[in-house]
């Protein structure tokens, strides 16, 4: 039990009263027992090979970060397109190398801002992008041929990707110069993030449409980022995070192959997205294990021979639910440790959460500290000097082996159940994640998992310093609505109807890629809600299996 109110005088002693590492802490958060000393004889695979060589345990590039640093990519976007455009220009001026666009929930769920469900949510968790005119404003003065843009978008991913292509067309940027990512991972939305719209099967078609189009016309753009981050932040362990994500990944690859995609080609553009939480070594080993599991799956299951199509590329987010609302400045330290783990694990892009993210949208000041954290790790810590700097450490190789075994075991359970799509349609995976979250919460409540400043080492008599408070401009939603109405006024209605009708007619055609139709709709300034409604009319909506 955790004493409810520790005083400053006994705050130097852990709540558990134990001076060393407790029995529970001898296990990683994934439940893997790690001996106090690991020796070479205990290793199943004592030689991890070389970076840049199959199965890429030590990294996908032989030169690590010497050739190219990871992409520093801060997630940001709020209010209307104008406000977000100002924040993006600020971040680019500060040395950020890629944009990451957060979209508001109406855009993510396919509702126009005037829809009653949309009104309270306009511009809250991201920027509102209901039509091409808004995107043109968002990227005003930013050359889409020179920056890489990542969109956290899933339910409406194909539409936002179509809009991005249309926006590039308007800027005169050739499509093959576009770089960036759309998340476009609908399966995990049903499990953890909840921005689904259509049933599972038609949603899989849209995912594949976007990936197949990208493979042909925007070869430098990643049209899917298979994400474990959300199930992880919801409560899964690091091992489950990789296992569930790879199970989803296999479902997508199977679908793309079924649609006639060339796995040697599209697999080169597959990328992944994970959380990094606080257990430093487990996080590093998670990525080492994941690299070799994915490479083996690609080679052994799909017969992929091109090494670039076997490579596991991933971005990470550091922070999330590992951050606390209590004593929020401690979160700066947490994010720094997590960033070190991401770099030692070989991430291709990193997003660092701001310290106030546990309770608000970051302010400009907190967002800057998050960015500086990455720059300090990159240019001062020296950790990026050599590739896979922890490779060859006995404990790191031991833990990488054990995590690999556990990930493969859990993937087997999902396969036995009937695959990821079925496990999700039935609500089986969702219930599993909820139970795991409940367990994690109980372990924190009981003090078995120590969270400094939250359940241990508290000083409740001193109020938490939270720094500056974020204030969303209360007029922003009104401006979004005004601009939305203005676009609907001035657009060519005949062109809108023509392109939407063409989309509707393409839907029942088996194997027809809907992307070109969506791009035409975007060019005509059809809105996200209008496109989604055309698709809903034929596909219906996902019926959530509510299971506790």
């Amino acid at each position: 039990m955790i004493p409810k109110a520790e005083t400053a005088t006994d705050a130097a002693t852990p709540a558990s009263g134990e001076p060393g590492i407790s029995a529970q802490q001898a296990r990683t958060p994934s439940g893997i027992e790690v001996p106090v000393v690991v020796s070479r004889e205990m290793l199943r695979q004592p030689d991890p090979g070389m970076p840049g060589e199959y199965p890429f345990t030590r990294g996908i590039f032989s030169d690590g970060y010497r050739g190219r640093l990871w992409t520093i990519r801060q997630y940001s976007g709020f209010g209307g397109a104008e406000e977000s455009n100002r924040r993006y220009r600020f971040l680019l001026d500060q040395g950020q190398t890629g944009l990451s666009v957060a979209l508001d929930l109406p855009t993510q769920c396919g509702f126009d801002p005037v829809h009653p469900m949309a009104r309270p949510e306009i511009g809250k968790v991201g920027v509102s992008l209901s039509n091409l005119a808004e995107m043109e404003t968002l990227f005003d003065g930013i050359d889409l041929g020179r920056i890489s843009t990542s969109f956290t978008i899933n339910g409406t991913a194909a539409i936002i990707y179509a809009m991005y292509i249309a926006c590039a067309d308007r800027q005169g940027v050739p499509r093959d110069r576009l770089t960036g990512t759309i998340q476009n991972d609908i399966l995990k939305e049903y499990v953890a993030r909840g921005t689904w719209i259509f049933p599972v099967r038609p949603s899989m078609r849209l995912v594949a449409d976007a990936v197949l189009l990208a493979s042909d016309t925007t070869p430098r753009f990643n049209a899917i980022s298979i994400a474990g981050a959300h199930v992880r932040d919801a409560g899964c362990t690091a091992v489950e995070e990789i296992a569930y994500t790879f199970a989803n990944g296999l479902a997508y690859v199977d679908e793309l192959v079924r649609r006639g995609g060339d796995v040697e080609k599209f697999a080169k553009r597959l990328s992944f997205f994970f959380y990094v939480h606080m257990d430093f070594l487990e996080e590093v080993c998670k990525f080492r294990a994941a690299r070799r599991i994915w490479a083996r799956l690609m080679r052994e299951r799909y017969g992929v021979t091109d090494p670039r199509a076997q490579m596991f590329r991933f971005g990470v987010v550091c922070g999330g639910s590992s951050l606390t609302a209590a004593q929020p400045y401690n979160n700066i330290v947490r994010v720094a440790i997590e960033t070190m783990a991401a770099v030692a694990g070989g991430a291709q892009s990193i997003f660092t959460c701001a310290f106030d993210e546990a309770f608000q949208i970051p302010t400009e000041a907190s967002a800057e500290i998050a960015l500086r954290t990455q720059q300090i790790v990159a240019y001062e810590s020296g950790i990026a000097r050599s590739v896979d700097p922890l490779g060859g450490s006995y404990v790191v190789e031991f833990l990488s082996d054990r995590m690999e075994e556990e990930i493969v075991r859990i993937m087997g359970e999902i396969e036995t159940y009937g695959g990821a799509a079925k496990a999700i349609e039935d609500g089986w995976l969702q219930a599993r994640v909820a139970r795991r979250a409940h367990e994690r919460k109980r372990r924190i409540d009981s003090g078995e998992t120590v969270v400094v400043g939250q359940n241990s080492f508290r000083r409740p008599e001193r109020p938490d310093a939270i720094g500056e408070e974020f204030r969303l401009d209360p007029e922003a939603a009104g401006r979004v609505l005004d601009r939305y109405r203005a676009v609907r006024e001035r657009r060519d209605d005949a062109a809108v109807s023509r392109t939407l009708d063409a989309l509707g007619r393409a839907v029942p055609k088996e194997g027809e890629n809907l992307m070109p139709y969506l791009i035409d709709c975007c060019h005509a300034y059809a809105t996200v809600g209008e496109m989604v409604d055309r698709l809903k009319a034929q596909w219906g909506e996902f019926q959530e299996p509510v299971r506790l």
Partner: protein
Amino acid sequence: MSAVAERAPLRGKRVLIAKPGLDGHDVGAKVIALALRDAGADVIYTGLRKSPEAIARAAVDEDVHAVGLSVLSGSHKELAAETLEWLRALGGGDVAVFVGGTIPPADHAVLRASGVKGVFTSDLPLEDVVAAVARALG
């Protein structure tokens, strides 16, 4: 307090856990639902994306003692106010409404002033949440 009451302080209470609006982060809602169930309550979970009106109707139809709204999108003030309004309009003015999620410290008092009986953030131990609900329901 008897041993049974201590183990199941919410026995005989009916609670609706709801996700108003478009926010899809439902794990907090499910964890609370499981904790309230462990504490003896009859728990109904709405699933995602419900309008305040639909939530209030479900609360009245199911004759619940309490509604727990889970909001992580920042729209808690609007959604809680609308739900309270609909509850009053539908004759459920006596239903205790709680709000959980990502709620900035400054908004806790605002929510309470609007009629919300308790505000819970993710760092609060589950037993404190259960105790607060039990206290409010008497």
